[in-house]
């Protein structure tokens, strides 16, 4: 039996600020618990060490404005690199599954990154997934975001991609940051139905989450048949989390992971550093390693403490029925959108960066192509805290783009570079060619990102 890969990178020398929830202390007690248990000594577990992600790994997912160096610190590169190490170990068949307990987190980071939002700068899961697709040829991937906050960054990155099924359950956006993740957010027309949001009422318990897992998430995975399942593993649904209002327990998290059986799990949020994280992390490791975790629970755990509201279960039934239908209609919806639509689907969006106080507006165009999941053009303008504005024009060509669309996108980039067009920076992200460029119109220079 292959071991479970474990990459523990607590970044003991990194914090957003001394008293921020993302501080050095966050995984201290998890460290104590993991090492006191002797988890790393077990034959069921193999420990891995992180490395630095390369600029090209970041550029494969993000347009960092003004540059990768400004957005991704060394801590971010190590966290992202940690997820890549787990990905390599999994793809090489060294491990049966892997858990990257890393920080800083990433699931609020979107394609265009001007700064930190929701404690995230770069998206560890997306960087890992695009790396796996590029290097090992994976295509169909499912991401289940189990953080209490809507995984809006990951959703945005894969909103247009029908080969990635993004499922997020989270505390209802009307009651919690980032205020999104509603059922009607179903994906861009070329990928409608592969974004599935499950907003949960505050105070939902283990029973409620496992209920929606069994009735919606597992059936979706069954039908989608992904080559890889990734758990974007937040731990803030816990009853003691200071930033949210749910009632999930370590036992519930273990059971969730046992049933979900993710191939790779990447730590996201979770800020009850002393009363939840050590127990959830250990329970999750045990679940992934196939070890009975019934003895791993919080000291104050009481199985009878939280009772699920039957009304909540009825509500979850309705969400499950609705989302299964949305998912099953996806091929028809996509075909209809491409058939009827203009050659480009376009939309606009406002994005707020809570940590860095940036307001960003985006115009997004996606080419509608009957033959492929085609390219996107994002025009972004960000107003920073002290009024300075930065503008970026971004061309993103997906890995499975057809050659006609790819040529068209590259030509459009070339033309934009020649004409300028008011953007401070113009980016090309050609995943098909693994070619990433950044044009600085102030200095009139183009660099290739390696």
């Amino acid at each position, binding site marked *: 039996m292959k071991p479970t890969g474990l990459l*523990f*990178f*607590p*970044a*003991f*020398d*990194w914090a957003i600020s*001394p*008293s921020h929830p993302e*501080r*050095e*202390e966050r995984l*201290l*007690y998890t*460290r*104590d*618990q993991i*090492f*006191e*248990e*002797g*988890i790393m*000594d*077990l034959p069921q577990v193999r*420990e891995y*060490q*992180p*490395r*630095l992600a390369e600029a090209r790994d970041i550029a494969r997912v993000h347009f960092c404005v003004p540059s990768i160096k400004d957005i991704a610190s*060394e*801590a971010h590169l*190590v966290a992202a*690199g940690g997820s890549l190490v787990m990905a390599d170990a999994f793809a090489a068949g060294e491990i049966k599954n892997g858990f990257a307990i890393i920080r800083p987190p990433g699931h609020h980071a979107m394609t265009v990154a001007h700064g930190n939002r929701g404690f995230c700068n770069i998206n560890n899961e997306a960087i890992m997934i695009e790396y796996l697709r590029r290097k090992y040829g994976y295509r169909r991937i499912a991401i289940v975001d189990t953080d209490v906050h809507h995984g809006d960054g990951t959703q945005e990155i894969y909103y247009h991609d029908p080969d990635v099924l993004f499922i997020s359950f989270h505390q209802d956006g009307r009651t919690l940051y980032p205020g999104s993740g509603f059922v009607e957010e179903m994906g861009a027309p070329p990928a409608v139905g592969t974004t599935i949001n499950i907003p949960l009422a505050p105070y939902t318990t283990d029973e409620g989450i496992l209920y929606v897992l069994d009735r919606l998430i597992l059936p979706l995975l069954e039908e989608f048949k992904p080559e890889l399942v990734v758990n974007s593993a937040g731990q803030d649904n816990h009853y003691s989390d*200071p930033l949210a209002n749910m009632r999930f327990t370590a036992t519930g998290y273990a059971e969730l992971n046992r049933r979900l059986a993710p191939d790779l799990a990447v730590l996201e949020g979770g800020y009850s550093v*002393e009363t939840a994280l*050590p*127990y959830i992390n*250990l329970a999750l490791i*045990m679940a992934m390693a196939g*070890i*009975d975790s*019934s*003895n*791993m*629970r919080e*000291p104050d755990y009481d199985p009878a403490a939280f009772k699920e509201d039957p009304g909540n279960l009825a509500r979850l039934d309705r969400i499950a029925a609705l989302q299964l239908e949305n998912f099953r209609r996806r091929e028809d919806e996509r075909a209809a959108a491409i058939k009827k639509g203009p050659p480009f689907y376009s939309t606009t969006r406002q994005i707020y960066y809570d940590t860095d106080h940036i307001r960003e507006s985006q115009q997004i165009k996606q080419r509608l192509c009957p033959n492929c999941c085609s390219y996107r053009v994002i025009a972004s303008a960000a107003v920073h805290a002290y009024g300075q504005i930065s503008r970026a024009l971004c061309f993103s060509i997906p890995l499975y783009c057809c050659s006609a669309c790819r040529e068209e996108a590259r030509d459009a980039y070339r033309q934009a570079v020649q004409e300028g067009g008011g953007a401070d920076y113009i980016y090309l992200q050609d995943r098909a060619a693994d070619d990433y460029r950044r044009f600085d119109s102030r200095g009139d220079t183009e660099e290739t990102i390696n």
Partner: protein
Amino acid sequence: MHIGIDVGGTSTDGVLLHRGELVQSVKKPSRQEDLAETILAVLDGLLEGRDAGAVRRLVISTTLVTNLLATQKGARTALILVPGRGLPFDFYRIAPDTYFLKGNIDFRGKVTEPVEEAEIERAVADIRARGIGRIAVAAKFSNRNRTVEQEIARAIKRLYPEATVVLGSETANRLNFPRRAVTAYYSAVTAPEWNGFADRIEEALHRRGLKAPVDILKADGGTMPLVLSRENPVETVFSGPAASAMGAVALSRRKENAVVIDIGGTTSDIALLIDGEPLHASGGALINGRLTHINALALRSLALGGDSAVKGESGRVEITAERFGPAACFGGPVATVSDAFACHRGLKLGEAERAREKIAAAAAAAGLEPGPFAAAVVEQALERLGALIQGMFREWENEPAYKVWEIVHRRRFRLDRLYGIGGAAELIVPLLADRLGVPYLVHRLAPVANALGTAVARPTLAVSLYADTQQKRYLVDREGIEGSIDNPEGFRLEEARKTAAQCLARLAAARGAAQYLNDTRVILAEQFNMIRGFSRVGKIFRVDVQIAPGLIDEFEGVAD
């Protein structure tokens, strides 16, 4: 005069140094059934015609504990565990007589579930009924709170006063409960035999009028006084390889990165020196397949030595793990690795003609000429040794790291030199060094390097301090030292360092190590702010300080 005696598997070596010069060495066969007798015979050989009163220090490196654990002949010992929350209890069935008690301590040392008196009583009654006289006790997170183990110890004293008790928190206090439990268990298992040995040595030395301090070499390459070894005899496990590494340190005295290879009859043991100091295994000593908290050198062994038989078979060249006797050139029955190296290098060694015949015979079986056959054996041996050494470098480079800085500044192992020790070193080491692209040294004293390393190894001592200013207390992982923090607001990393250094000094005094305190090193210093809500409620510190392995001040090296 300084004396070092190293007990090996087949022979025991002793050296006597006077004013830094090696003035006497003695070799006797090791009688494994009576090691004290062997040691005393070597000692008498060294002291012949000399005044025992002039001996300044005697250091012994012995395989007693290693053998005891390998043959599992130690005293029957019960193990009482309080595993609390975490893995299923079945994961901790370390000893045949393991008892589990309810109870839980958390990572900050808070007892969240007490142990039940009735459960302790039942376990102790059962142990007593089975006639088991030794009990090891370990609780999860007893390194953060000793009271649970102490409560159990008190109950045992009351219910079964004849039993001897070893506590996990008194043997090892770093994180890792299973290793702590194993360490406490093996400490209890080996103690009676060890104490018998110590009694005999002490008594015999007294009779000889030898009043100098007597130290024992530990697995980490440092020494501890014989009298203190009674508390933690298990720390003397694997002292043999430690002796050879310290021998290389003594012979080189350079601050270099080096490989020390001890090539014996059928095995090669490899240790690394980093800046002239032996590298420790991050996992602790591995005993009978179980990791412990015992500081031990990072060692790799390969079943390949000078006497390993080589054979040819249907076109293939094979180095076997078997030994049928000495090398053919020294009268052995078959061609060996040594013969192949001698033949390949064109060296006339012993009965060179006989060796050539044996090589030719093996080569014929492989369908090769003697020359290419010997070359193939040499290539295979160098390849396997080289791969093992490179693997050790990679492992060192990839040691677990939990800080951004450490990952960004990943270290690279740059090898400066290769040291050869052991019978076949002269033959193999020059070619191995060539392959690794570094200079080498096979010192004229290499044959007694182990005993020399034993003689001049200095005491080592490591202390780990854990402090929690919210709880206003600190704990140190030795001898149950703990204390209160009177001024939690003013207790910063600097104070934590000072406290750790003070504890080290206090312990060093009893270990004859006070003179090395000026070489105290801080191995790890970490601090965490504890934030609850948005304000700081305290700090957690961990500071590890140590007197690292090294050479005694009196030793100034021997001439090349």
